[in-house]
């Protein structure tokens, strides 16, 4: 920096008029993301790595075209159906028309709900990106906006109301952005983490027992699938994603991306221990062994869902581990036999 630029940047210490100042925090409305438009924010590197392949664009065009064709065909068919009903009798026509309008309205409502849930998932991802940046930069002034966005996300959740009030109390204008994020992590999300871990624990025990006791492989496959889906939805709802059907699918896709690319769940060391524990259990009983392995898989799904749905990424100190679930599951043979 040369002397002249320094001089221009430099401001002498001074006192100013108290009336001309605005207090921090300046409450600014966070820009609402427009549905359908990809927000230009950072997302998980893992997720980004999955995108950008040239093939997916062609696939999207294909899907779009097919959907349009189906929609047009459906429209023609419905119009045709209506015309024929009215031709047969007025009563039948009115009946069919009523049925069609109910179908259209409910389909529209469903679509809206799906879109909203997708938007919430995206918003959580945005928040995670922001939190990452704020923690890294430790600047000042954006933390309040972040806390505000998070409070809006959890607005209308009676279980979180006291926590949010406490959070608002705890944050002062003296905290820098990284501290605000850490406060949110401790005050709000730590409680959610505990609840999510309990959910995961319960689900993995369920699948383990169901696998161990089910008479046919088909049944336990179905039970495991259903229970895993339910777990993902429960955890997502807990963190405020409220997923619909497409939302869940999208969530699953994100989770797969995370599992495959980032290897979020555990290190190789843990995998080895799991396998060892599993084989030990398998020596006792094949069915129970399978149960333990299925339970561990469910636990892994649950923990990945926690990673995917949390508005602030886990740090090294609070990362959920399979440890407790593993010990719980390894006592299962004793319980079942």
């Amino acid at each position: 920096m040369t002397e002249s630029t320094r001089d221009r940047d430099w401001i002498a210490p001074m006192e100013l008029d108290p009336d001309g100042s605005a207090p921090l925090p300046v409450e600014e409305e966070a820009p609402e993301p427009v549905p359908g438009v990809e927000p230009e924010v950072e997302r998980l590197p893992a997720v980004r790595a999955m995108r950008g392949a040239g093939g997916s664009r062609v696939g999207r065009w294909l899907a779009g075209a097919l959907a349009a064709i189906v929609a047009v065909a459906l429209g023609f068919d419905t119009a045709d159906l209506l015309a024929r009903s009215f031709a047969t009798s007025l009563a039948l026509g009115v009946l069919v028309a009523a049925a069609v309008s109910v179908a259209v309205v409910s389909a529209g409502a469903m679509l809206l709900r799906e879109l909203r849930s997708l938007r919430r998932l995206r918003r959580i991802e945005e928040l995670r990106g922001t939190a990452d940046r704020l923690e890294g930069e430790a600047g000042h002034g954006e933390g309040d906006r972040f806390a505000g966005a998070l409070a809006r996300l959890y607005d209308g959740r009676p279980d979180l109301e006291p926590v949010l009030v406490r959070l608002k109390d705890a944050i002062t204008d003296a905290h820098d952005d990284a501290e605000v994020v850490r406060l949110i992590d401790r005050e709000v999300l730590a409680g959610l983490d505990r609840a999510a871990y309990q959910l995961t624990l319960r689900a993995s025990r369920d699948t383990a027992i169901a696998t161990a006791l089910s008479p046919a492989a088909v049944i336990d496959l179905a039970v495991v699938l259903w229970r895993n889906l339910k777990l993902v939805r429960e955890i997502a709802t807990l963190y405020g994603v409220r997923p619909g059907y497409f939302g869940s699918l999208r969530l699953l896709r994100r989770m797969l991306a995370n599992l495959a690319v980032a290897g979020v769940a555990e290190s190789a060391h843990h995998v080895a221990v799991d396998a060892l524990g599993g084989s030990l259990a398998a020596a006792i009983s094949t069915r129970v062994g399978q149960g333990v392995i299925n339970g561990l898989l469910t636990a892994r799904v649950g923990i990945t869902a926690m990673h995917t749905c949390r508005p602030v990424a886990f740090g090294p100190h609070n990362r959920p581990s399979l440890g407790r679930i593993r010990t719980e599951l390894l006592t299962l043979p004793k319980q079942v036999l």
Partner: protein
Amino acid sequence: MRIQDLTDLTGAGTRLFDQLGDAAGRMLEGEIRLGVTGLRRAGKTVFVTALVDNLLKAGRLPFLDVMASGRFRAARLKPQPDADVPRFEYERHLEALTGPAPDWPQPTRGISQLRLAIRYRPGSALRRAVQTASTLNLVVVDYPGEWLLDLPLLRLSFAQWSTMTLDMARHPPRAPLSADWLAWADSIDPAAPAEEEDARRGAALYTAYLHACRRIEPGLSLIQPGRFVEPGDMKNAPLLTFCPLPGDRRGRHSLWALMEERYDAYKTSVVRRFFTEHFARLDRQVVLIDVLGALNAGPIGLADMKRALQLSLEPFRHGSSGWLDWLLGTRIDRVLFAATKADHIAASQHGNLKTLLDGFVAEARSHIRFEGAAVETMALASLKCTDTVITEHEGRQLRCVRGIPVGRDRPTVLFPGDIPPGHEVFPPGRERPYSFLSFKPPAGAGADGRGLPHVRLDQALQFLLGDYLE
């Protein structure tokens, strides 16, 4: 082996015995001794008051793990452990801060203590199984920073100390203050037979010089020996009638020999006594530093503070030189250096203030971290007196502080100057780039019953006590 080392050995033995007894007591009920000291008007009294108040009322400590996880039950004041140490007058200081006309409490002289019992639920399931609620006794020991700066004297002989002190006194900013004393030191003959009158005169001049160092605006931090300005109970004792002398070891009954004798006596009965009775029994230490005051004082004030800071790090370097040191070492395993009055700058500047402080302790810190205590730095405010606000100035947004300065009764908005992110805090050509004002305690502080508002006091507590409250 010299006599000095023998007393060291017996002292070490006694202390070892004491520590065993202490350890036995700690097994039964947890106790932690937290030393609080500060360099140059750093706000020790306010720090201790705010710390105790926040623990008692437990409303504003989100970064203290035991609070955040809801395991904290309550804290209350308890009678002191040591009958011969004055009590820290928490109630009186709190009243001064929160009364109808809030003002800063009178600075404390000498050492004082306060004991708090903190009741909490242990975090680990194993400990919960043994007892559902644990108690940690927190003893806060507040002593003047000058006493901490005395500890390095234990390593210095009279000749070494004299050389160092004289050299410092001959250079700015001390030279004008020390003129009288230096003139006297140059006029006498250290080899001449000792006269009590000469010794008293020298000590009086030297004391006056030290007082001047402290009194001038901006004050200087490095003042040795500390009891000359903070005599406590030994005002006018012969122990305090010596001063550094030029030259080297002289004849047996010379003035030099007399001064050396008294210097050694000071080391044994003042410095070492403080070390064994108080300092060696501390578990954690926080050193408060008024970095903003030093910045206000310009490059010379800052350099003086830096030197004092590095000296004050010395006692925590235990284990660095030889077996004797190991025996004499303290058990302090965490030291926090905190830049106080962080509320006097905009919150966006706290990071830079911390970086600046980091730079001062960086060198010593790497040694200490390797051998002795863990060292942490922080920018904090024991009592938050200002708010950070945004102001427009010539088309630019400035982050300023708003509060009521001492001596006025209307709030003002102050832009005190930005601390640059690096260590080059005094850009060339700008003699006084900063103007930090002192602010009054806010009216009605802590009136909501949740404890005094603060900046990062909870993070300081987490570093200092957190692992004891697991």
